[in-house]
């Protein structure tokens, strides 16, 4: 695993594939770690479960987090990220299906950094990166 990992917590294979495609097609070559449910995402971040022994000092530069997830839902994952000193400062972008979802997430006031309406496309993604000031962290490879 190299630095500047992007963690995608998403259970829908189609969405995963589309996100992977969008990133690749837009020349974003940061390693993408996909967690297919909330628990797996949490395990990855805190080096637990399947990810036991992972060096938790090296955390992803951004977490793309779906809300509706098996096991732990997105909001619970977010809550744990914000509750732990190791992960508190990681930018979290919520992937929403609707404005409805955005409202719900905003209502919890859990320090969401931004929202991306699915499917993730290049425009939204770059806009978000710009908003978050993460641009320099995202690896742009020449096509």
């Amino acid at each position, binding site marked *: 695993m190299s630095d500047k990992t992007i963690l995608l917590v998403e259970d*829908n294979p*189609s*969405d995963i594939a*589309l996100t992977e*495609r969008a990133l690749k*097609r837009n020349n974003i070559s940061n390693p993408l770690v996909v967690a297919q449910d909330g628990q797996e995402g949490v395990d990855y971040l805190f080096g637990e479960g399947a990810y036991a022994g992972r060096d938790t000092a090296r955390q992803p530069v951004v977490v793309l987090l779906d*809300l*509706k997830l098996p096991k732990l839902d997105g909001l619970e994952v977010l809550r744990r990220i914000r509750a732990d000193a190791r992960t508190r400062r990681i930018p979290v972008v919520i992937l929403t*299906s*609707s*404005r*409805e*979802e955005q*409202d719900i997430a905003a209502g919890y006031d859990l320090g969401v950094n931004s929202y991306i309406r*699915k*499917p993730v496309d290049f425009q939204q993604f770059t806009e978000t990166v710009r908003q978050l000031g993460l641009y320099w962290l995202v690896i742009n490879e020449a096509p």
Partner: protein
Amino acid sequence: MPSSPTLLSWLHKSVGASLGRRLAAIILVFSVGVTLLFTALQLGVEYRRDVSEIAARLHQVRSSYADSLASSVWTANPADVQLQLTGILRVPDLQYVEVLDEQGKALARAGHSLGEDQLSDSFPLYFTQRKQPVYLGRVRVEANLSGAWRRLQSKVPLILVTQSLQIFLVSLFILLLLQRQVGRHLKQIAADADKLSAGRMDQPLQLDRPASAVQDELSQVVTAMNAMRERVHQAFVQLQESEFRWKAALEGAGHGVWDFHIQTGEVVYSKRWMEMLGFAENELPHHIDTYKRLAHPDDQRLAFRVLEANFNGSSKRYAMEQRMMCKDGSWKWIVARGMVVEQDEQGRAVRMIGTHTDFTDRRNAEMEMARLLESAEAARAALREVNETMESQVRERTAQLERANKELEAFSYSVSHDLRSPLRGIDGWSLALQEDYGAQLDATGREYLARIRSEASRMGQLIDGMLEFARLSRTALAPRTLDLSAMAAVVAERIRASQPQRQIRFTIEAALQAEGDPRLIEAVLHNLLENASKFSASRSPAQIVFGRRQATPPGGAQPVDAFYVQDNGAGFDMQFAAKLFGVFQRLHRSNEFPGTGIGLATVQRIVQRHGGQIWAEAAPEHGATFFFTLGGTT
């Protein structure tokens, strides 16, 4: 004598009570007695005088005939003697005369001797010879008293009549005199006394006789009576005053008074006592039976139980509430109070005095109040029950609603996530196909692909619109004062920016303010301005106005202050106006004006939630104006 008690009582019985008649009778009886006595005395005297006259005649015979008889006897001349004797018998009342010789042998006689009832006299016969008296014999003369009796008897009637008449006249005179001098005044005094006892004492007694009359017994009686009248009058006035005072106090306060003499059963009921029950003063008998007749049987039993304590001396006061029947048969509530004012030696009540007070009105008011309180309580209970029922219903409904809301929320979420997810795939992968393999498809293939993407996009919009509509319907309002002009300006700028190729002129009235939820009102403005822009797409320039003016809503009587959004676009036929605000209702074909048919339904829902209304005026090809009010429009 007439003073004997039997006679007095007989008199009293037979002549009656009149003093005059009694007096007359007494006088009559007395005078008859006196008359008889005096007549008897007079007759006795007359008889005595007659007898002495006869005696005197006898004596006269002696003096008249002694000498001549002596000489006749001396001369022994019997014829002469006999002649002389016959002459003697002519003297009244003399009936027998005889001449006796010295041996007592009768020489001559005349008349007949009766032997009884006679007065007799005898005298000697002397012949004087040579101055010497020679005794020759005796002469005896008898007088008859029956003549005197006859005379007496003939006098009796006359004497009786004259005496009686005299006494009767004297009696009558005395009687008249008495009647005039005493009886008349006595009657007047009696009449006056009657008047006095009847309470009329305005005039002092004045007898009908000269005022200068001496102070006799009658005057003393009159003086005494007048003095008594004055004292009685004063006492009476004082009594009246005192009675007036307590009567005024009691009756003025509406109390009737009763005065119960327990042994006799007599009860004096006052005027007010009677009036209270609708009777005139003294209309009912003053007896305890009147009370028993009018008091309610139930109360009466209780009343007499209470009274019993007074009668036997264990209590001196009496008070209770009871019903009394009025003259018209209705019942009145009476407070009866009383106290024992007189007791016998055993302490039992002899006399009680008390009052009756009508408290029907108060009692009725109390009953009415109690009834009202009761019904109010019942109403309160019913209300409470209704409230509880309603509350429980409301709770139940609220719970149902909450459940429904949650379900709706879950459904919305599910739709938003689950339906959109495959759609996202269709859209995403068709895009991928277009981008990655578009070059390998011919024009027709690329067109099909574009149609897939367009339809997917439209479906996404429909889902979004539906979710938005649901969201707006259930989001709690957070109203505050909004600057509608500024909000409209932002929306207009966004629209202009999204369609830079079009010429759109927005005219927005300044300083429009309203109370509302910022996000929802923003949605209203967005939808209406977006609509206006959409339907005026064929105009260049498109003219869109947002402002406020007076307008009359459909079915409304008065113009109201309404916001409006006006365009110069396609407009619509007013006969379809009713369909404007229905969900998924469209007035135009989608190839003319794209749209989901949800926008205006959403707007109407928001306006209604703000307590306002929305309506439109339009004509085909002459633009449309949408009016809306908000509850808090200022």
